């Protein structure tokens, strides 16, 4: 599967005076739990140990967020915060995968990290061409029905 990077709005700064936008490896996914589903853009994050979504997404999917197994994680500022895990379905292109996704109030937008997502694919990020290539690992998943 091939995707284009997404350009997001950005403002100039002292360090980047000409900046008007930032290209990020973002792909369209559908997050599904039972009969609820949301189609959204999510960031491929090779620096994330696992998938992490805003708690509001889980709530909209009908999950009782704090009933899930708990973990602690931290962002770049080093402050720990709680994450609650639930198994949901992620649909990417023609494929659907089951993924353990962490949900946290502190997470600003959906991140597709290693456990649950990147581990199931061979991923190629080509920034110069602004292209993303995802190939399912042979032992993973099945075509979407």
């Amino acid at each position, binding site marked *: 599967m091939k995707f*284009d*990077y*997404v*350009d*997001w*709005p*950005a*403002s100039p*700064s002292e360090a*980047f005076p000409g*900046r*008007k*936008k*930032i*290209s*990020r490896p*973002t792909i*369209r996914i559908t997050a599904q739990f039972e009969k609820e589903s*949301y*189609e*959204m*853009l999510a960031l491929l*994050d090779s*620096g*994330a140990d696992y998938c*992490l979504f*805003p708690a*509001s*997404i889980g709530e*909209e999917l009908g999950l009782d967020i704090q009933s899930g197994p708990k973990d602690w994680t*931290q*962002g*770049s*500022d080093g*402050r720990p*915060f709680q994450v609650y895990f639930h198994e949901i379905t992620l649909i990417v292109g023609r494929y659907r995968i089951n993924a353990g996704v962490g949900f946290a109030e*502190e*997470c*600003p*937008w*959906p*991140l597709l990290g290693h456990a649950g997502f990147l581990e199931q694919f061979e991923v190629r990020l080509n920034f110069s061409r*602004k292209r993303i290539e995802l190939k399912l690992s042979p032992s993973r998943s099945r075509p979407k029905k």
Partner: protein
Amino acid sequence: MNDLSEILRGLENQWVALSHDEKKVVAAALSLHQAKQKALKKGERHPVLVKVPAKSGGYVLSNRG
């Protein structure tokens, strides 16, 4: 290239419902639920939801969002 930089400008820190082809903003709100409901009311049955980062600068995950 999927350039959303202009249509999302000024919508920082909001949930935005895009049209299914991702060409235009259908609705924006502070919550995911509100953004989707607004989009459905406007006739977009399959919106694509995006959360626009709070600051229009570089991004690394921190718990300041």
